[in-house]
């Protein structure tokens, strides 16, 4: 066991921090090409398909920096979930070529798994009915991260024999309606609807079961926890700075013990999220499926059971300025609200944790 970052990991963190600092005023322009150039997409792709096959620790170091910087690119969705799912389902040249193209940024794939009125259920009600040599797709997917900017959608649909197929489809094709919209944290997602949309048999990458989809999501869940951790640590640092510079009643806010203690409380909670993340990473290395899932749900509940309160307290400690969009601290609160219900929420993961603990 080694708690210190390797030289390579330090370099990864530094380059990420520098990259986001350089494009500060420019957060809304797409950086997907830069992510590819920096090797951050290849980091997730397997070595036999043009990737680096990085350790989970490397990916989480990066995710932490993305959270700190409030980066909007759908890294958890289009890099982690999409690549993990394709790695598991596709075969041979198709698998290698697609993953290589995703790793070098030439094809961006958005995972479309969730459906209207079905919360976090992964069993698709979307049907792919056999039609001649191909399939006819009917149904809708919602909250597709980066779905409005993707070259391809990766979607789950139930086949005639009741198994689940993963399909790669072109969102620009006729028969597909893509409606993009903003999320409360300024991210971009899309709803996609298919009305008897006919696709060829080559669109079916392969079959997959729900448990395998859930496992592919698990790495992204850890990335969201690390993303939240980076954001919360930054919010606390900003709050500490602000309390030292702002005065009321002729003295720095930092001199009021009530405020010192509030800040310390959210520091303790945030620091224990880091510990929880580490226990989950250790379980990932152990390789036992049940222990891994349980540990990741543990980390999720620890993180998002506290994240909004931590970020909200940081806002509160700033007073009015914390509520403004011009100031950064409130954006962390908005991001926590979105992250905590992407890929499941606290109740969902608490239930999974309890089910796996018996």
């Amino acid at each position, binding site marked *: 066991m080694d708690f210190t970052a390797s030289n390579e990991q330090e370099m990864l963190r530094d380059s990420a921090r520098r990259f986001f600092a350089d494009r500060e005023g420019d957060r809304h322009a797409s950086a997907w090409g830069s992510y590819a150039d920096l090797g951050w997409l290849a980091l997730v792709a397997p070595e036999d398909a043009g990737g680096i096959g990085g350790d989970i620790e490397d990916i989480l170091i990066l995710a932490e920096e993305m959270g700190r910087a409030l980066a909007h690119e759908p890294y958890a969705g289009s890099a982690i979930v999409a690549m993990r799912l394709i790695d598991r389902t596709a075969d041979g040249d198709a698998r290698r070529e697609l993953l290589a193209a995703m790793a070098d940024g030439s094809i961006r794939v958005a995972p479309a798994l*969730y*459906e*209207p*009125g*079905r*919360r*976090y*259920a992964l069993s698709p009600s979307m049907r792919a009915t056999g039609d001649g040599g191909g399939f006819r797709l009917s149904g*809708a997917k*919602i*909250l597709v991260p980066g779905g409005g900017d993707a070259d391809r959608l990766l979607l789950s649909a139930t086949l005639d024999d009741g198994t689940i197929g993963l399909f790669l489809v072109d969102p620009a094709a006729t028969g597909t309606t893509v*409606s993009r*919209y*903003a*999320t*409360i944290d*300024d991210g971009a*997602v899309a*709803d996609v*609807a298919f009305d008897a949309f006919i696709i060829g048999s080559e669109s079916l990458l392969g079959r997959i079961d729900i448990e395998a989809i859930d496992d592919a999501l698990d790495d992204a869940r850890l990335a969201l926890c690390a993303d939240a951790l980076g954001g919360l640590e930054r919010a606390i640092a900003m709050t500490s700075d602000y309390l030292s510079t702002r005065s*009321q*009643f*002729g003295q720095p806010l930092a001199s*009021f013990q*009530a*405020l010192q203690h509030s800040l310390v409380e959210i520091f303790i909670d945030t620091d224990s999220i880091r510990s929880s993340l580490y226990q989950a990473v250790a379980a990932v290395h152990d390789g036992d499926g049940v222990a891994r899932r349980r540990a990741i749900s543990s980390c999720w509940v620890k993180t998002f059971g506290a994240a*909004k309160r931590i970020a*909200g307290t940081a*806002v*509160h400690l700033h*007073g*009015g300025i*914390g*509520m*403004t*969009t*011009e100031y950064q601290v*409130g*954006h962390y*609160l*908005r991001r926590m*609200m*979105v992250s905590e*219900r*992407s890929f499941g*929420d*606290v*109740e*969902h993961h608490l*239930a999974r944790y309890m089910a796996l603990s018996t």
Partner: protein
Amino acid sequence: MKLAFSDEDKAFRQEVRAFIAAELPADLARREAMGFHNGRATVDPWQRKLHARGWAAPSWPREYGGTGWSPIQRYIFELECGLANAPEYSLIAMSMVGPVICRFGSPALQERFLAPMLSGDCWFCQGFSEPQAGSDLASLRTRAVRDGDDYVINGQKIWTTDAHMADYMICLARTDPDAKPQAGLSMIIVPMDAPGVTVRPIGTIDGDAHVNEVFLEDVRVPAGHLIGKPNEGWTQAKFLLGHERTHNAYVGMLCRYLARIPGLIDDECTRGLGPVEAAEYRRRHALLAIDVEALQWSVLRVLAGEEGPRLNAAASAIAIRGAEYLLRAADLETAILGPQVIPRFRPDDSLPLPAGAPASAPGRSTQYLYWWAATIFGGTDEIQRNIIWNTLFR
């Protein structure tokens, strides 16, 4: 001691309920339930209906056009409005500025402002806070200097709710720079269209538009716009902020949340919410209801004057808990709705809803985010705790 609502109170509740049911426009109630900040045009029809009924100003003395209601009746009215999704209209004019003008204003000011306030033709904003004077309000720097028949005002206000749609600002300004900080302040009515007044909107994280910066540059107002006598401003401000002491408990809003949450849970059970989660949300609802039931009686105790000298402490206590419970209620609603609250909804509901969003989703995230401001405005939680300490234990 007899802790029961009287028959008159019960009859009054029915009267209020019947009036709201008959007069509140359904579309207005629907918008108010979403919880976005109301524009003036939205709430105007409601204020006119209340005015016609003589109920526009629950907290003004009767001789000035108020209702003359007992504190308990005012409480019942607020609760019923909250439950029925009736909006608060022109809150600053009706609950704060009006009572100050009734109490301290010259007959000329009363003549000029009270009637248009009642009819909804005159909206006010409250210009107290400044960039360097938030919790420490007495350190404010905006100056008002007497010049012949006028005052000339220079300075900057911030966080001014509704400045963009108000006709006037009640401005707390320094009229005697040599006196102690609290002693040299006055309240002056500033027309928002006076030359030298600039309003700049401030974006807030809830995604709605309600607060502003107000810049005052050589703004001239007639000396008669100063309320009462010069340098009485601190006393008046304390009267104003303390006037609706129980308002910050938000019992109307809390009861609205409590009333609709069970239905929200039932709806979501048809949209994939599982029985285990539903049971947990029902439990959280019950725990919140229990807290709010106690809060309501804390409010009634303050209203009945039972707290006596401890009134300030009691009012601060309910303000702290009120904000805390609002956050809990709004958090529970977003949890129940789950991923459906992720989209950024616009107050303008002409936009189509995303495929995954039921009609109950718009406004839920916005309100949760906004209620963090309730831990800040009207005196932050820490300032309220200081008040309790200083009143009871020092």
